């Protein structure tokens, strides 16, 4: 039986005002340990102001083969983008 510490995904807020961003993963026995390890592995040079750790097993990911059904419907909805509409120059900035 494997006695490996579980895998955690690490997210770091690089600066105030930015969202947390996935930076990598690590093994740790529990959440507190994962935070300590994340500090040592991913922020040795002040790379962040806040760390999230999430058990990798708790992440639900979309499957690569679902790409079509998830994103293709957006293909024929170009009107969602502002450039779809021609506004005469005379109107000014809009």
């Amino acid at each position, binding site marked *: 039986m*494997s*006695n*490996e*510490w579980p*895998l955690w995904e690490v997210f770091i807020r690089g600066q105030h005002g930015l969202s947390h961003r996935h*930076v*990598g*993963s*690590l*093994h740790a*026995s*529990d959440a507190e*340990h994962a935070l300590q390890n994340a500090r*040592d*592995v991913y922020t*040795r*040079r002040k790379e962040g102001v806040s760390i999230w750790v999430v058990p990798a097993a708790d992440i639900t*990911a979309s*499957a*690569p083969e679902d790409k079509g059904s998830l994103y293709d419907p957006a293909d024929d909805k170009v009107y969602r983008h502002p450039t779809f509409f021609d506004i005469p120059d005379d109107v000014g900035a809009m």
Partner: protein
Amino acid sequence: MYAQMIKSEATQDDPEQLAAFQARIDAGDKIEPKDWMPEGYRKTLIRQIGQHAHSEIVGQLPEGNWITRAPSLERKAILLAKVQDEAGHGLYLYCAAETLGVSRDELTEMLLDGRMKYSSIFSYPTLTWADMGAVGWLVDGAAIMNQVPLQRTSFGPYARAMVRICKEESFHQRQGFDIMMKMVNGTAAQKRMAQDALNRFWYPSLMMFGPSDSDSVHSEQSMSWKIKMNSNDELRQKFVDQTVPQAAYLDLTVPDPDLKWNEDKGGYDFTGPDWSEFFDVLKGNGPCSTERIEARQKAWDDGAWVREARLAHAAKGHSAKVAAE
């Protein structure tokens, strides 16, 4: 390099899927862990990233050797930070390898029982403080040469680990060169130590890039998969061209009497390393090969109770929480 002599695995996949996969790579797409990939691609990458990770971890040992004997508190703190970075690099890479379906324990076991290798360079001893300079300057310099192009490699997690590593690696090379500058400007004995370190590390550094392209049978497949970005000879030449002027700046002599600038090719002609020594070291017969694996084995064995205690503690915390609810 940190990954030498990586054998590409033959692939027996559906030709149509293979062609579609190759088209993605040619278009510059990144392959992510859950995407379809040929079995050969997966296996070759596990071996390559695994060997790279092992090299970072084993690479801590020759430098760790000098932490307690660094000549000043500042040098000690710097060396400690560098060695800690190497541990970090190993961890980024192990995680990248694990996304391909191999476990951390399996990787460790394969290193310990010899199924996986680490770079030949770390089987050489570090005899004097000047070796800390030579290792940073030459070994990390050679590593950078290989790792910079690997930031564009086709496998997403590997490329991202390389970006992180490259950001940190420059400090390593510069601290090494800084030690060399101090040594060559010191006493005559210190300068002799610097020259001696260059003499011993020059050819092993050239070996890091792996055998000549003409003898490197697995390069082609890895290059078309974009998990190897440049040929061994190309990178070796680049390393020599970059390093020789730096040695001149230090007023040190590269231990190669046939080293000569070649105007036509715009690079140096130089003597290649003794490849029989390289193959011997890779087989585990380097001067420190036994010692290195013994040190890793000891760390693995001595750490067993910590790994278990941590898990037991976590389980206890969990059951206490359940009981309180």
